[in-house]
């Protein structure tokens, strides 16, 4: 898959998952690697970029097992970005679907 395209998709997935609740890196990585075929390690650069863009913010929280975890929380800016990415995604998906499944007229 094209790298830039994949980045956008991963960003959309991360932001959407954070819409439900705050999550930590490992959690995001394991869900994403299970659902869409990416390696766990690819998630952290995306998280860092989202943080640099102020789309997410982080805080540390104690966990029952192991060291404290870094949690990611969606910001207002992040939610706007999510909506815009989702819009792009829906357009793209519908367009692709209509071509792949329609077959006859492309008007």
């Amino acid at each position, binding site marked *: 898959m094209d790298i830039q395209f994949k980045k956008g998709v991963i960003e959309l997935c991360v932001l959407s998952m954070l819409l439900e609740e705050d999550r930590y890196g490992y959690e995001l990585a394991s869900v994403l690697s299970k659902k869409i075929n990416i*390696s*766990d390690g*690819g998630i*952290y*650069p995306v998280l860092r970029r989202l943080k640099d863009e102020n789309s997410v913010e982080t805080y540390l929280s104690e966990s029952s097992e*192991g060291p404290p975890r*870094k949690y990611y929380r969606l910001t207002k800016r992040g939610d706007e970005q999510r909506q815009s990415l989702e819009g792009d995604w829906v357009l793209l998906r519908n367009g692709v679907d209509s071509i792949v499944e329609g077959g006859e007229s492309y008007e």
Partner: protein
Amino acid sequence: MNKEQYLSKLKKMLPTDESNEIINDFEEHFATGMAEGKTEQEIIESLGDPVDIAKEYGYDESKDGKMSVGSRIVGLIGLLFFDILIGVSIILTLFSIWLALWTVVLGLVVSGIAAILGMFFIALPWYILLFGGISVLALAVLMGIGMIYLTIYSFKGLVWFANLHIKMVTGE
């Protein structure tokens, strides 16, 4: 590759001002995975190639660690000049000294043994020959140990020097 090796490999390719924070994230990833019962190997496998991850953080493979063709050619010519003008004579000199020192060790061993055996043949008090011989052998052992170290380090130096040439050719 274990966790430490994986993280240090990754760290080397990260921008220095951010590397600690990024490595912390990965430490946390390992800790969480292991708390879930995964092994270091399984976690490393699912994380993927550190080079790919580093690239996402802006690491540029082509810029890093590789020398340009121009500087490699200049470096190689410089090295060859050094080799011809002084490198070869230095190596030959050092090799002769090394050979001479080993010969001395051999000489000490032979004369020590000869002195001890001489107890039966030479008209000198036996204790002089015995203790003299033992002292000489002890000296030979000491010097031999020293020479073994010297040999190891000279060999390493030689390998390093030879690697310089390879580095110029491959550019790594």
